[in-house]
Structure formats: C-alpha cells, structure tokens
C-alpha cells in the first residue's frame, strides 16, 4: 500500500519549483508520497512532530529529506545543523537540491552531512532522470523497512 510507504520530505520555497518537483515525482512514477513544505522552519516542525505534524500516523518520519538551500525563515544549512544535532534523525538521508552550483556551498553541505548535492536542472527531463536516480539510490530499501 502506497500509504504504507514512507514519504519523501522536500523543503522548497519557490511555488513553481514545488509544482515542478511534484510533476517530476509523478512523471518519474515514484510510489513514495511526496510531502513538500514551504521552508526550513516547516521542515523542522514536521521532523519534530510539532504543531499540526504531531500525528506520526499521518505524518511519519520521511525516508528522504530533500532540501533547498536558500529559503526564508530557516535555510537548508540551518535545517542540516539542526538535524545533525539530533541522533534520532541520523538514518534519514539528506540530499541538497539547490540552484546554486557554488563549490563553497557544495563543500559546506558535504561537511554538514549532506549525502548528495544536486543542482536543479533546467530541463524537466533532466529533473525526472534525477528523481529516478534518487529513488534507486535512497528509496529502494524503504519498502523492506515496513
């Protein structure tokens, strides 16, 4: 059951990008549900089970965390720092999906525990390919965890 699959939690502030990401997941045919939050703050609240995310049945811990870097309120780096301080989230793979191709950003992300750093591709097809690769790499075992 789809609902039994752990979700992918993505934090993305850009409206269009949120839609494109959802379409990309659809086109890639990913079975894991995609939860997209508007910024780092919300991502943190989801992970902490705070506020409306208190119900773990409805909002289970994700199988993968996709983080944009530049976001209002709490940036991707802030979230990574917060997560790194909590061992209970150690098993969740953390992938950066950013429009920045700065080497310094890449290096910083790697140091802060990002498992992968992806630059947002311009072409939609490239995005779909990228999502498929993500599934292969991080989500293929999520079913056995059930």
């Amino acid at each position, binding site marked *: 059951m789809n609902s039994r699959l752990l979700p992918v939690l993505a934090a993305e502030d850009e409206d*269009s*990008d949120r839609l*494109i990401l959802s*379409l990309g997941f659809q086109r890639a045919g990913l079975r894991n549900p995609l939860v997209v939050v508007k910024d780092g703050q919300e991502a943190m609240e989801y992970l902490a089970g705070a506020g409306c995310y208190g119900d773990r049945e409805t909002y289970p811990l994700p199988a993968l965390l996709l983080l944009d870097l530049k976001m209002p309120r709490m940036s991707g780096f802030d979230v990574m720092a917060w997560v790194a301080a909590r061992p209970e989230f150690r098993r969740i793979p953390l992938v950066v999906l950013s429009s920045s191709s*700065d*080497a310094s950003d890449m290096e910083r992300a790697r140091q802060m525990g990002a498992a992968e750093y992806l630059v947002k591709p*311009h072409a939609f097809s490239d*995005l779909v390919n990228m999502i498929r690769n993500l599934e292969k790499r991080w989500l293929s075992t999520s079913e056995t965890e059930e």
Partner: protein
Amino acid sequence: MVARDSIRHRIQRLTVLTTGVALAIACLVFTLLQWRNSLDMERLATLSTGRIAADASSAMLAFGSKDEAQKLLDAFHTEVDVRSAALYDGSGGLFAEYRAPRSGPTPPVPQADGLYRERRGLVLFQPVLEGNKRYGTLYLHTDLSDSYQRLSRYGWMALLVFAGALAAAHMVGRILERTVSEPILSLAKTAQSISEERNYRVRAEETAGGELKFLTRAFNQMLDTIQQQQAQLDRDMAEQKEAARRLAESHTLLSTAMEAVPAAIWIAHDPECQTIIGNRASYDFLGLPPNTNPSLTAPESERPTSFEVLHEGRVLRPEDLPVQRAAHGAEVRDFEEELRFHDGTSRFLFGNASPLRDAHGKVWGAVAAFVDISERKRAEAALRQSEQRLRQAQEKLLLHAADLEATVAERTAKLRETVNELQTLSYSMAHDMRAPLRAMGTFAQLLLEESSGSGLSPTAHDYLRRILVAAGRLDRLIHDALNYNKAVLHAAPLAAVDLSRLLQELIDTYPNLHPEMADIRIRGDMPWVLGNESFLTQCFSNLLGNAVKFVPADTRPQVRIWAESRPREAGAHRPVQANSELSEDPPGDRPALRLDPQSTGSAFSGNMVRIWVQDNGIGIPEQAQGRLFGMFQKLDNKYEGTGIGLAIVRKVVERMGGSVGVESQPGHGSRFWVDLQRATIDPTI
C-alpha cells in the same frame, strides 16, 4: 831625509868618534911619556958631560992653564946640542969660554950649582973639585933640539897611526853597522810605506836574530793586529756608511712624504711641545709662513696668535690639543677640531696624534696628522639642512597624504559598498532569474507535451518551441555569467593538480566529448600544474567544448592535446594566487586577487608549461583573434554560444598566474595554448 840622521850615520859617527877619542888619548899619553923620557935622557947626558968636563978641567984651573982649558971647551963643538960652555975660577971670574955659532952669551958669573931647566934648554953649573978643594965652576948650556926632533918623529908617527886606525875603524864600523841598521832600516821603510800607503798587508822581513828579530816579529804582530782592527774598522765604517745612507734615505723619504701629503703633519720635539715643526700642508692649513713654530705653548715671542683651536664648539686649552696630549703619552684617535681664524674663517681638521718614544719607552715628542674636512663639513651641513627641509616637506606631504588617504579610504569604502551591493545584486539577480526561467521552460515543455494530439495549431506549437529554446539559451547565459562572476570574484587557492586526470574526467563527464562524438587524444604525458581544480575545469571544459563545437557541418571533430615545457622568461606572468584568508569570504564581497609569488610555496618549480589544444575547426580570422577572449564576443551566429566562455578561460588562467593565446587560420583549425605554472611536488604524495 835619511842621510844625516839615519841610524847608519849615527852608528858610523859613533864608531869613528869613539875610536878617534880613544886613539887620541893613547897617542897623547904615549907622546908625553916619550917626551919625558927624552928630557930625562938629555938631563943625564948633560950631567955626565958636565962631570967629565969638570974632572978634566980641575987641573987646568988649578994650574991656570987657560989654553988647555980653552982646548977642552972647544972640544964641545962636536956635540951639536952643546950651545955654550964656560969655566969659572974659584973667584967666579970667567976662565974660559965656548960658544957655538948663533948662541947667546954665557952668564958673567956662575949661579948656584945645579941643573936648571930654562927656556933655551938645560943649564948646568958643576963645581970643579979636586979632592975636597974647589977650584972653580963649569957652565954648560945644552939645547933640546934632539928631543924636539924625536918628539916630532913620534908626533908624526902617532898621527899616522891615528889616521890609519880611524880609517880601519870606519871600515869595520861600516861592515858591522849593516847587521844592525839593515833590519832597522827595513822596519823603518816598511813603517814608512805603511804610513804613506796605508797598506797594512805588507810585513817586515825577519833578517837578523836577537832583539831585532823580536822587534820585527813584534812589529809584524802589531801589523796583524792593526790589519785586523783596520778590517774591523773598515767593516764598521762600511756599516756606518750604509746606516748613514739609509738614514739619509729615510730622512729624504720622510721629508718628501711629509711635503707630498695633502694632510697636515706636526712633529713636536719635546714633551712640552715648545717647538713644533710641520710640513707645507700644515702651514697652509694654519695660514702661517713656512718653518715658523706653530706651537701654542711656544715661547711668547714665537707663539702664533692668528687662530684658536676648538673642539665641539669649545676653545681647547693648549694642553688639550691632540699633539700636546700625545706628547704626554696619550694616543689620540679620530679627533675633530676646528681652526677658527681671527679673520672669522674656519677650517675643520680630522686626524690622529701619537707619542714618540725612545728606546726606553720614554716620550720625547709627538707626531700628529690631520686632514682638512672643511668641505665635508660644509657638505654635511648642507645635507643636514636639505634633510631638514626634506623632512619638513615629507611631514607636510605625509599630512597631505594622510588627508588624501582618508578621503580615498572613505570614497573607496563607499565605492566598495556600492560595488558589493551591485555585485551581490547582479549575482542574486542572475541566480534568482534561473528559477522563473526554469518554470517557464518546464511549463512550456509540459504544455507542448499536453498539447500533442489536441487541436493546437502548428504555429502555436512553433511559438511554444521558441519559448523553450529561448529559455534554455537564457539559462546557459546566466550559467556562464555566473561562472565568469565566480572566475572574477571567488577565492582560488592554488594546489598541485594532475592535468592528466582532470582532462580524462572532463572527457568522461561531457557526452559531447565522448569518443562516439569526437576524436580527442592526449599526446604524451600531461604535467602536474599549480592551479585551482575548479578553474582548470572551467578552462579546459570551455576549450574542449569549443574545439568540438566549432567544426564544419558533417565533420567529425578531431582534438589533439599536448604539453610543452617553457622555461620561465623574464617579464612573464608572475604566479598569482588568491589569498587563502579570503577563501571563506562570500562571493562578490571583494576581488580576491593578490600577487604573491612566495605564497605558492615549494610546489611551484619556477617553470611554466604550455598546454596546446588543437582542433580541426573552422578557424578564426586574424583580425578577430585580438578580441576573442573578450566578454560577449560571438564570432559566428551559426553556432550556439554565449560569448562568455573564452573570457572565463582567460580570467581563470590569469588568476592562476598563467596566460592564454591562440594561433589560427580560417579553414585550417585553431591551436589554443594555455601557459600554466608547473608543479614540482611528488605526485605520489
């Protein structure tokens, strides 16, 4: 003159005189004795003749026979020495008489009986006796002519003997004196020759024995001694002469040197420096006539008064003058003094003074040598003055500069703020433009997909495609612009990079570089270079991308890459490195560029390496090659591109201390070269 006083003559005189005196005395005594004998014999003869005649006449008297008596008396005429005779009767009357011719008268009366010596000869008065009866007196007068004759004969004989003996003595003396005088004369001659010729090598011959031999020997020994002493004396003399010559030479040297040197030299000859002499320069310095006494402690009348001596602005007392101090045993070094003349002028001197000591170390004078440093002093003063002025000017300038700097700093800060704002703005604008662009491209794509099969007109279809292409081009443009921005702004620490690995990874990463798309070959070994990995990637991805892109249609791209060593030339690009301190700075904060060859450390060998990238592309016209590496230089609109790629290449290469260039002819392909610093580190580390 040897003759008169010579020893030979003396000896001869001595012999003759001695002999003569002896002979004279002998002859005289002999003659006198002979004379006396003769007188005695005469007396005896007279007495005996008288007695005989008296005897004979006694009877005649007795008988008065005068004739008889006359006969008797006349008989005396045979006797030559009887001068006269007479007979006197008993009463004293003349009885008979005899007189030889030329004889004097007989005495008229007899005198007393006896024999008398008279001047004329002997006179005898003989009594005529018969028994005891006296009958008369006999007178007889004899002269001494016989005796005189005998005496004369003796005298002549004595004279002959005397003369002969003398002659013999002279002869003998001549022979004998030779044995004595010859050696002495020889000695004398030798002595004279020595005294005249001063030849002490001659020796007297040893001819005689005895004392003369000793004398000669002693004389010769004396000569030996004299010769030795003379030789010694000669040597001493020669040494003294040599010493004197050297002394004279060094004196000449000293005085010539003293006159020649342009420095003043003063020599004091007594510890109190009452007399000082100087060389010409010294009198010139002091403005005194030559050969005067310049001592300030000279006797009042000689003492110069035209100047005084100062040291560090104070007038020196005479005893503090360098010469005077040296004359009291002090060594004075590097002393500066001022001669202030009473006409207001000054002269500055600099020099030394040393004491003069005798063999026992006692100071007997001093010598001082000084040079004129007036010019230097003036130059120093002028220099000080201009330094002073310079300092003042500098201070003014510094104040000015500080003002200026403050202004500049203020304006620079403002400018930097503005530039930073602009850079940040453009960076984030460019960055933020990509998200809507992506949305545009994606939704155009999705719309195209949605509309396939539906009733969208071909024209609308074409429009959608154009939107898609334009969005894609704009994204690439932004992408390149961002890369160029990074090339300009981002920190780029240099490290040794293996070009061989980097190029292979590039070829593997980009699909258009894969073997099925292009024939890319690396010839020979690629070096390790001192560079920045990201910059090198930018550089070669652009060069290789261009090489496979700008080829004529239907031509398979062929790219050749090789390396060439280039010794570092004077004036070549210096190694450039982004300062590592700034590596953490946010992009766009400030240009992180700094020239610092040292900071590249040991990894930089000092040599450059040139990487060639050759293609079989369309080539570049000569006139376009100059602006090829500028921003937004697109040469051919047939080919997709932003016109930023080669600008990025130049920027990153320059920031790695290298340079870039191209050789190309249209239709014959292009050869791009990149000069990079060769790294020397061991690649295995």
